[in-house]
């Protein structure tokens, strides 16, 4: 897929992986609709990038919220070609711990945002993509990029909910690709390892010296290079996924070779 002039919906686009991806997409001639809960960060990114982006406050778990976001995207830009799903949350709770069994509502919330929110958004974007005239000789109409985590494969102590949600994202990659093949929509999933984002930095956006010191022991767990990933390295993978027309139904780890240990 040629990126120039294509339009992407990027959930979680106001920070972390999503933000880096929006920046890279725009630098390559795309327009982006940033779907995020954080209005302040979303508007800041719009101020930064100008006409190529819009911000919509969207709760990916809410059908009407996503539909409203999509309507706004169509009004601003006219079509949707790419959907990147980066919106996600984590928690750390043991299945059975000092405080008793894992509270069910906490489990459901993580699954709701990460798994159901991803599916909710991609199905509604696929609906819009299906209306596109093919833009490749293969009858291509769109590309969907989901975000899982190495926790899908090697979830640590406390990660039952997070790993369930991310394992679900991995598990649904191929069947969704099979569903959408007839429409010319490719579906792939990025599987990040430890990446320097607010999710890893207790909400902070920038890698300050204090946070860097705090994160260094984590970096030494990575095989090579021994550091956290840069969000732009994930964005580079998102770009690769969008561009390569033969990549489909695949989950790609970007993790410096880490294999997560129990703790």
């Amino acid at each position, binding site marked *: 897929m040629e990126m120039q002039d294509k339009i992407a919906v990027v959930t979680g686009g106001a920070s972390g992986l999503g933000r880096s991806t929006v920046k890279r997409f725009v630098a390559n001639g795309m327009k982006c609709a940033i779907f995020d809960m954080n209005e302040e960060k979303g508007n800041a990114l719009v101020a930064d990038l100008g006409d190529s982006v819009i911000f919509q406050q969207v709760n990916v778990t809410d059908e009407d919220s996503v539909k409203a976001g999509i309507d706004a995207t169509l009004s601003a830009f006219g079509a949707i070609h790419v959907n990147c799903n980066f919106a996600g949350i984590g928690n750390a709770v043991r299945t059975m711990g000092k405080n008793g069994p894992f509270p069910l509502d906490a489990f459901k919330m993580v699954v709701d945002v990460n798994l159901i929110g991803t599916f909710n958004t991609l199905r509604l974007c696929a609906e819009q993509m299906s209306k596109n005239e093919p833009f*490749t000789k*293969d*009858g*291509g109409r769109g590309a969907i990029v989901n975000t899982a985590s190495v926790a899908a494969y090697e979830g640590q102590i406390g990660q039952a909910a997070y790993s369930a949600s991310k394992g679900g994202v991995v598990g649904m990659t*191929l069947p969704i*690709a*099979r569903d*959408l*093949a*007839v429409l*010319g*929509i*490719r579906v792939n999933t990025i599987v990040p*390892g430890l990446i320097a984002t607010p999710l890893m930095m207790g909400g902070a956006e920038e890698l300050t010296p204090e946070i860097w010191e705090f994160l260094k022991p984590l970096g030494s767990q990575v*095989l*090579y*290079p*021994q*550091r956290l*990933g*840069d969000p732009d*390295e994930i964005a*580079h*993978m998102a770009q*690769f996924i969008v*561009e*390569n*027309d*033969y*990549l*489909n*139904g*695949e989950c*790609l*780890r*970007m*993790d*410096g*070779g880490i*294999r997560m240990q129990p703790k």
Partner: protein
Amino acid sequence: MDINGKVAIVTGGASGLGQATVEAYVAKGAKVAIFDLNEERANTVIADLGADKVAFWSVNVADEQAVKDAVAEVVEKFGALHICNNFAGIGSASKTLGKNGPFPIEQWQPVIDINLTGTFNVSRFAAEQMAKNEPINDDGGRGVIINTASVAAYEGQVGQVAYSATKGGVVGMTLPMARDLASYGVRVNTIVPGLIHTPLFDMLPEPAYKSLEASVVYPHRLGKSTEIAHLAVFMAENDYLNGECIRLDGAIRMQPR
């Protein structure tokens, strides 16, 4: 890694996936050494891209001394080694047990020798040279090795037992090789192609070819060698990609036959 100014070895670089990768690397400003057995084809590639940018070594990747010598000569000629792509490989079609009896053992070893042992042989001598580099980035990076497996590593078909064993081996050694070479700053990744169009497929009768195309989920065609090259470039460039095997296959999952 910025490919511009780097030196790459591409085994099997005289045709197909290897050739497309040689072209992609040269377009990005690298110098490339083609290791292959087909001198004539290699010379065509060199005539196309320029003898200042591409050179040919006649190498049987399973031959220890030949590989050792050739890798050393590449460094002598081009000054260093940063990237190694292992595309050299052969196919095989024989059932574990068939009408003619059990799999003939003399057909087993050559596939192992070239696809698995050859890949490993080249990689270890390439790593030796890469380890001598000054770091090329802040991560202490010195090089990247990119192997080629096949979806047959995961879904080998009837008759592919030998081929799948070799490609499964390539997949299986990706992580331990990355772990071995981490202290040298050398990343290791593996491309897992599905059905990719190469001159080999030109000989297939049209109905058979169309049937193969239809078996791909989407897009309904064989892959292009340029798409494989695009993945090779991505693997070389992205400094955080390590120990990973990536399928490029239009979402195919191979059925028994």
